[in-house]
C-alpha cells in the first residue's frame, strides 16, 4: 500500500468501518432507541392528555350550548304557555263579565218586575184601605149625622173622588 499517498490503507479503513459499525449498532440499541422511545411515549402520553382535555372542553362547551338551547327553548315554551294562559284567562274573564252582566240585567229586570208588582199591590192595598177608611169614615159620619145627609155627603164625596 506504499503507492497510495498519505499512507492510506484500505485494510485499516475497513477496520475503522468495522469499529464504527459496531459502535453505531450498540449506541442505537443501548442508548438512542430506548431514550427516543421513552421520549416518544412521554410525548404521546402528554398529547393524549392534551387531546382528552380538549375533548372534555369540547364536550363541556357542547353541554353548555345544549343547556343554553334548552333554557332558551324552555323560556320560549314558558312565554308561549303564558301567552296562551293569558288569552284563556282574558276569555274566561270576558265570559264571566258577560255572565255577570246578564245576571245583573236579569236581577234588575226581575227586581223591576217585582217592584212594579209590589207597587201595584201596594196601590191596590192602599186603595182598598182608603176605600175602607172612607167607608168607615162615612159610616161614622152617617151614624153621627143623619143617614141621608151622610149618604148624600158620602155620594158627593165619592163623586168628587171619582172625578
Amino acid at each position, binding site marked *: 500500500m506504499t503507492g497510495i499517498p498519505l499512507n492510506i*490503507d484500505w485494510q*485499516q479503513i475497513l*477496520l*475503522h468501518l468495522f469499529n*464504527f459499525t459496531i459502535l453505531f449498532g450498540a*449506541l*442505537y440499541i*443501548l442508548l438512542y432507541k430506548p431514550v427516543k422511545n421513552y*421520549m416518544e411515549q412521554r410525548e404521546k402520553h402528554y398529547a393524549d392528555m392534551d387531546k382528552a382535555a380538549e375533548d372534555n372542553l369540547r364536550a363541556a362547551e357542547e353541554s353548555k350550548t345544549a343547556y343554553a338551547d334548552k333554557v332558551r327553548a324552555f323560556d320560549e315554551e314558558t312565554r308561549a304557555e303564558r301567552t296562551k294562559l293569558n288569552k284563556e284567562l282574558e276569555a274566561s274573564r270576558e265570559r264571566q263579565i258577560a255572565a255577570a252582566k246578564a245576571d245583573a240585567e236579569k236581577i234588575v229586570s226581575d227586581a223591576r218586575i217585582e217592584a212594579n208588582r209590589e207597587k201595584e199591590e201596594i196601590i191596590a192595598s192602599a186603595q182598598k184601605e182608603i176605600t175602607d177608611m172612607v167607608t168607615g169614615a162615612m159610616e161614622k159620619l152617617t151614624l153621627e149625622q143623619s143617614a141621608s145627609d151622610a149618604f148624600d155627603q158620602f155620594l158627593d164625596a165619592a163623586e168628587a173622588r171619582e172625578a
Partner: protein
Amino acid sequence: MNKRERRRTAVIFAVIALIFMLAAIFTGGGGTEEEPIQSVMRDAVLHDLNKVSLFGLMDVNPGLLAGFIVSGFLILLALICRIFIIPKFKPVPGKIQLVLETIVGLFDGMAKGNSKINKFLGAYIFAAGAYIFTGTLFELFGVQAVTTAGRSISLPAPLSDINGAIMMGCLSYLVIMSGGIAGNGIKGIGKTLKEYSLPISLSFRLFGALLSGALVTELVYYYSALSYVLPVLVGVLFTLLHALIQAYVLTMLTSLFYGQVSDNTPKPPREKKHRRKSSKANAAA
C-alpha cells in the same frame, strides 16, 4: 476561606508549579532516544513510523487503536446508561436523564428538521457525533501506547488518522446516498452522485481539523518550556472547541445533504418564461 488563607494557597500553588517547571527544564534531554520535531510532525500526518500492534494481529496506525478504545468506552457508557439509568427514567427528568434526552433530542431534531425520512439518519448522526466528540476529547487524556519500535506515544484522536477520516467521510456519503435511494429511488443515486466531491471534502475536513489540533498539541508538548499554562488553552480549550465544532459540522452537513437528496417534493413550475412573456407582452402593449 479568608483573604490571607487564599493568598497562602496561591503562593504554595505557584511554588509547586515553579518547582515542576524547573525540574522539567533541567531534566529535559536526558532520555536515551529523542525523536526530532520534524519526525514527530511528519509521523502525525503520515503515520509511517510509529505503528502499534492491534492485539498482536497486525501493525496499525495508533488512531485505529484509539478508535477501538473510544468505541469500547462509548459502548460501556451506553451499557451503563441502559442498565442503570434508562429504566429509572421519570416523566419529570432528573439531571442525567435530561442530559441524555437533550443529546438524543438534539440529533433527532436535526434529522427531523432536515428530512422527512429520518429514522436511520437520526441514529447515524447520533453515533457519528458521539464518536467524533468523544474521539477528539480522547487525545486530551494522553493514553499511552507502545509502538512496534518500542517508543512510548500518547494515542491521538481516532479521526486524526487519515484512514478513520476517510471512513467517516465515505460512510456519511453512503448514508446520504441511502437517503437519496429511500426518497427518490434510482433518481436519488444520480442526485447524490452530483455531489461527487462530498466524500473527499467530508473526509479531509475532519482529517485536517483534527490533525491540525494534534499537530499544535504535539508542537506545544514537544518543548517542555511551552508545557506550562499554554496547554490549558491549546490542549483543553481548543480541543473542547473543535470537538464540538467538528461533531456539529459533520452531523449537520450529513443531515443537510441527506435531506436535500431524499426530498421528493415536485419542483414548482419555473416562472422565468412567464415573466419573459409577460414583459414582452407589456412591451408590445
